[in-house]
């Protein structure tokens, strides 16, 4: 199972806690993780990435294992520690304000 940490507002929308677990069949990439998230939590469709283009929303970032994966290809494999469930895949909202 892949562990995914959601930002606060998306936890509220999906009625879940900070971390959710999703089953990702096949190759584990940003895209396959987000596909799985949207199947399990359809109310999150359109909130993390655009409905049509599937582009990451500009004020959201993806991290794992201390690395910023936001600008990696959505089809690139994520770190092994995410695949094994040792580390979570983090979806983080940009910090606003001063």
């Amino acid at each position, binding site marked *: 199972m892949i562990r995914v940490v959601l*930002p606060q*507002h998306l936890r509220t929308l999906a009625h879940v806690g900070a971390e959710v677990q999703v089953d990702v069949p096949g190759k584990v990439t940003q895209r396959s993780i987000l596909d799985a998230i949207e199947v399990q939590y359809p109310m999150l469709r*359109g909130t993390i990435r*655009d409905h*049509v283009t599937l582009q990451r929303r500009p*004020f959201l970032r993806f991290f794992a294992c201390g690395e910023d994966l936001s600008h990696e290809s959505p089809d690139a494999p994520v770190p092994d520690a995410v695949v094994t469930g040792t580390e979570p895949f983090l979806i983080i909202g940009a910090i606003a304000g001063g």
Partner: protein
Amino acid sequence: MSGVRVLVGTRKGAFILTSDGKREKWNVSGPHFAGWEIYHLKGSPVDPNRIYASQTSGWFGQVLQRSDDGGKTWIQPGTPPGEQKGPGGMPKGESNKFVYDVSKETGKPLTTHQWYDGTQHPWEFKRVWHLEPSLTEHDTVFAGVEDAAIFRSKDGGKTWQELSGLRGHGTGPKWQPGAGGMCLHTILIDPKNPKRIFIAISAAGAFRTDDGGATWKPINKGLNSPFLPDPGAEVGHCVHHIAFNGSRPDTLFMQKHWDVMRSDNAGDSWHEVSGNLPTDFGFVIDVHAHEPETIYVVPIKSDSEHFVPDGKLRVYRSKTGGNDWEELSKGLPQQDCYVNVLRDAMAVDSLDSCGIYFGTSGGQVYCSPDAGNNWKPIVRDLPGVLSVEVQTLR
């Protein structure tokens, strides 16, 4: 017993204010959707317990919420808890999927509009500004969105289809965003002719359909906007809001960026009725529920300040359909007040003594249960108010 339900959208959630017909004691519910911008909430005239809410965020985009019990509980249409997956494993609900229609069959090419600097800019969906439930059909609701377009749902908000004839009018490259974005913020459905709908866009102007939304025509003749190369142009005007009394839907009142305007022929032509207002800039305008010639505005100091003049919060009322205006300030702050009242933040109820409501950027929601003569705050310290609607419950 009759009562009212006031639906308040703010920068940090929605609030529902309820009272009996006296409108003296209030119950406050909320925040609903805490932390999100709630651009608009509106109840269905067919089923007052059905309320739609536009929940939006720069981070997470658009979410549509619906209540079928008067605001006690909410769902995203199509994705009720426990029924979140469709037959194929994918979600049924697309309540936040607003996709411009570019199909050959029903759509129009996604053209560009004018950007702030005068260059052309592609159309991009950002949020829903205004929700207008059908007057007659239980599951039909319209949405006015940014970048400007009108969408319709016929299934209670689950799925949305653009009425692309508006965006496809052909004048899109001359439309431009106002300070708040290029938003379609006003939708008025003619109660005597449901195929006739009026809409308004900042900054494109007003449009009307007479065929249920298939085709639209600009209705801006008589508007004068000095910031345009051609001040009397067909489109490009920054219309802030339009209102009418349902008993006389051909008589429209408009608060434009500057100028308060009136039309007596369903928008075919307009004339100015700003008269003796201290400033003819403002955002809101509304009409008394029982007196179609009694109208209300809140003058705002512009162009750079956008707060009420002289530190005094004053509503102005005309009982003559414009030109002659009286100041209404009893119960409103008359010193050190520097709030704004945004375009969708005024509403009227239809009780025998017509109630007037408005919300401010400072988080106050005021009510006058006697048509504007006396005002009291219902609440003083909400987040900045984006919209106010009222339902009269009988």
